[in-house]
């Protein structure tokens, strides 16, 4: 589990670094970005995991989201892993942008040929936190997760499938009900097979229905002019309806005029950092 530092840049008195390591879970080299706030030099800090969307690498978030200042202020370590295994030489992995490379969908694949490498759910849930906790001044008890689009889906299912593991969760334009949308059907079908009931284990809207308690504060921002919203890929209404039904507290903000881009993310990233800081620093 040796870490290899790829880059390090000073940022808001802390450091934005990129590391590479050999992942046991994914059987390949993986990179992740980590922001160490100035507070990390003297104290253990909570960790906030960011899960990116389709096609992204660890670079998108750390270069575009402009989260550093807020993270520095609140003393949060922010870890941004890649979105899928890379270079596994699986046939068809690079064929489309919404499946395979850059589209791990944060599931543990059960179908060949993906099941060996495409175990992003376990990677993000177990291997990565272990690695981070072993190598950085973290407080293992305090972690949260958030993400964008497919990463928003990943954040929601990680939080909903592991009650109490994450102090808080939030999402930008998450894929809320993948079993109902084209992206989800393609990816879940590809990784998990055709049994739709297996898909439900990775569907936030389905997971809410069996979520045991309501000690989770969920913040969701959604651009109103997001083309994928209107395309029916995200389906937040289904999720909200399920949460309302189950009395899971969600604040869902439909932001007028915003699209699916990192410009949208950058606009509201501070609210999300603060949302997590409230619970991580409580």
């Amino acid at each position, binding site marked *: 589990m040796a870490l290899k530092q790829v880059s390090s840049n000073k940022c808001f008195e802390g450091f934005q670094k990129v590391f590479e390591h050999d992942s046991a879970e994914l059987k390949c080299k993986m990179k992740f970005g980590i922001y160490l706030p100035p507070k990390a030099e003297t104290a253990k800090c909570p960790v906030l995991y960011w899960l990116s969307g389709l096609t992204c690498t660890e670079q998108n978030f750390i270069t575009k989201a402009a989260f550093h200042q807020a993270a520095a*202020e609140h003393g949060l370590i922010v870890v941004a892993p890649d979105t899928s295994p890379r270079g596994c030489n699986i046939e068809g992995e690079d064929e489309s942008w919404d499946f395979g490379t850059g589209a791990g969908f944060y599931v543990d694949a059960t179908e060949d040929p993906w099941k060996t490498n495409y175990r992003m759910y376990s990677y993000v849930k177990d291997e990565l936190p272990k690695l981070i906790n072993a190598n950085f001044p973290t407080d293992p008890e305090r972690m949260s997760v958030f993400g964008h689009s497919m990463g928003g889906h990943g954040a929601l299912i990680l939080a909903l499938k592991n009650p109490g593991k994450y102090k808080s969760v939030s999402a930008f334009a998450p894929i809320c009900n993948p079993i109902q949308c084209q992206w989800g059907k393609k990816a879940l079908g590809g990784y998990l097979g055709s049994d739709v009931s297996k898909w439900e284990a990775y569907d936030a809207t389905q997971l809410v229905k069996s979520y045991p308690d*309501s*000690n989770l*504060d969920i*913040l969701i921002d959604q651009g*109103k002019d997001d083309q994928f919203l209107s395309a029916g890929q995200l389906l937040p209404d289904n999720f*909200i309806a399920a*949460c*309302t039904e189950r*009395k*899971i*507290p*969600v*604040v*869902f*903000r*439909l*932001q*007028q005029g915003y699209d699916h881009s990192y410009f949208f993310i950058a606009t509201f990233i501070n609210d999300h950092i*603060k*949302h997590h*800081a*409230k619970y991580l*620093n*409580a």
Partner: protein
Amino acid sequence: MSSRSGSAKDCETSDQTPSRSASSPVPESSDTEAEGLIFYHMDLYGSKERFDIFPEEPSCQEERSLGDTRRESAESASSSEKFQHSQEAGYDLEKEVAELAKMYGLDEDREKELELLGRHVESRWPPARTEKAGSQGSVYTASKSSSPVKDQSQSTKKQGLPSEASQDEDQSKARAEDEAESPIWSKEGLSSGSVSDEWNSQAVSEEEEAADVFCCTCKTPIRAFDKLFGEHKDHEVAQLPSAVESEKEETHKNMCKLEEQIAQLENFASHLEEIFITVEENFGRQEQNFEVHYNDAVQVLAQKYEEQLEALGEEKRQKLETLYGQLVSCGEHLDTCKELTDTTQELCRENDKANFMKAAVTMVDRLGEFLKKEVNLELSTLPDFEERHIDFSEVEQLMNSINTIPAPCAPVISPQAPNAATGTSLRVCWGLFSDDTVEYYQLCYKPVSNERHSDEQAEHTLKVKETYCTISNLLPNTQYEFWASALNASGISPPSEREVYVTAPSPPIIKTKKILSCENAALVCWESGDINPVDSYMVELSKLTDEENGDTVTESIVGIPNCEVLIHLQPRQSYHICVRALNLGGSSERSEPVLIHTTGTYFCLNEDTAHPLLAILDDGFTIACDQLENPECDLPVYDNSFTRCIGILGSLIPFPGKHYWEVEVEEDTEYRIGVAFENTPRHAYLGANNSSWCMRHIITPSRHKYEFLHSGMTPDIRITLPPRRIGILLHYENCRLSFFNADIAQHLYTFNSHFQHYVHPCFALETPGILRIHSGIAVPPWAALP
């Protein structure tokens, strides 16, 4: 220095008669520095034998130059010496001497002299001879002076001749001090007594014939030789130094006694002066008193005299008039008699009988009638004057009163002293400037009033023995006029000037329902307890701790002009707050204290702003609306109340910082809650304009809808869990107004707005229901994050 020169001159120019020399004591110290001290010994050493010694001493030739110099200066300085001698004992001569020296231009001489002296003295000392000391202690032999020094000592000896011991002592002291300024002399130890003694003894021993013991019997210093063979053979002797010591001690004691006496006498003199003044005053006063009284008496007497004289004259006139009248009538009577006599005689001469008879009958009738009249020969009045009673009682009284006390002068009433007043009482003081005897005072007072007719009835009079009185049962914060008269057996003084006192105000009454507070401040307002205006108010704070219960005032705020004050406090504390009113008379009692907790922001609802359909329940913090339309439509509408929106404003303390409160709602209640400027339009819905910010809950057929309204705009926000308890955090510095689901610490929305003015909480109901408002609660930690 001039004085020393003077001494030298004295000795050299004066005729050195044996007698004078004899009176001069003893071989003095060889140094002039010591000359000041030689006078101590003048009497002690007044041995005649000593004089014989001097001529034998080596002449002063060696010191000629010095002698010359000194002579010059000495001549000019002789007058100064005389002057000094004329001074009284104890007078500090030093200054005078210095001045005189300056006046006579002696400074130069003096310096020269000093120089010379110094040179000589110093040059002579090294070859100090030890041979002579003889029986003297080693001290005395340690150094010795040779002839030139002796020359000086000789001259100094003579200088003491004419003077009285004490006088010279002081002078020489002064000289010694003067000389001390010269470096040479100071080096020599500034002529302390012992030093001079040393020199004395030394000088003596050097001669072999000098006295070295003291004959106690003859009280004179003698040579040891004399003790053995001379006239002092069987006398008791003492060592000269010890004799000197004891004598000096004695002298010193006497000096102390003298000083004591001087001090006593001075005290006594000043006391006498005081008495003198007092006597003059007292007698002056008595003289005046006599003058007044005797003048009065003389006046009264003069008046009596005038009266008596007048009465006497009147009596005399009356008597004379009466007598005169009697005399006149007596004369008339006499005339009639004469005429009748004449007529009768003529008748008798009548020859004609008939005629005679005719006439005789008439005549007889006339005579008979006349004789019938009684002739009053009694004095109608007595020549001596009547006994008159003269009333001297008034004079007597006047004369008596000369030695009795006069009626007192008017007292002087003092202005009101601080703390002399309470709400219902005043302590009034007055006094007398004169020493008049006063049996008691009569104190009058009445309230100062603008209504003239009420003056008479309100006046009160009290009889007081002391020069102060505490009057109670007065009205608070009211002005009273006081004046006093002094009385004794002789009468009553004129009244004093009138002085206005004012009673302290009544305690104010804190409006407990209008107290506003937050973590760092409280806004307290009150009603004056009086009709009349007061000068100012003061607020007293008592911070409550576990041990104390607020009896100790920990802070006071004074000089509050209005019935309202914003007090800065510390967060998370409890305070007792009292108010006092102040006027010239003092401060009122404390108001009833109010308890303030700075746990959180505490506000109250402003009933004036309530929509007619909105009811505030008894607790003051629950608002309710039963129906949306009023069938009767005649509900009272205040100027300040909401007319469209069934809402109400709270009154939030105008203080920066954080303010947090919560509102408990029913799930199906439609409401608007938030903040608004005080002047937000009453006819508009809350949140519909730019002077209000609020969260709105409405129920659509499909769901609960939440809006966060300002200027009629809201973001599109879905909230999956309808909050039952909404937390509202207003943070002026951060320009934020945040809403929370307080039950689960969920942040719902935050307005970012720079509030130009202080805002007030606002609440409105859009469907029948109730809102429960909770204030005075601490900001929850999850809401307080930056």
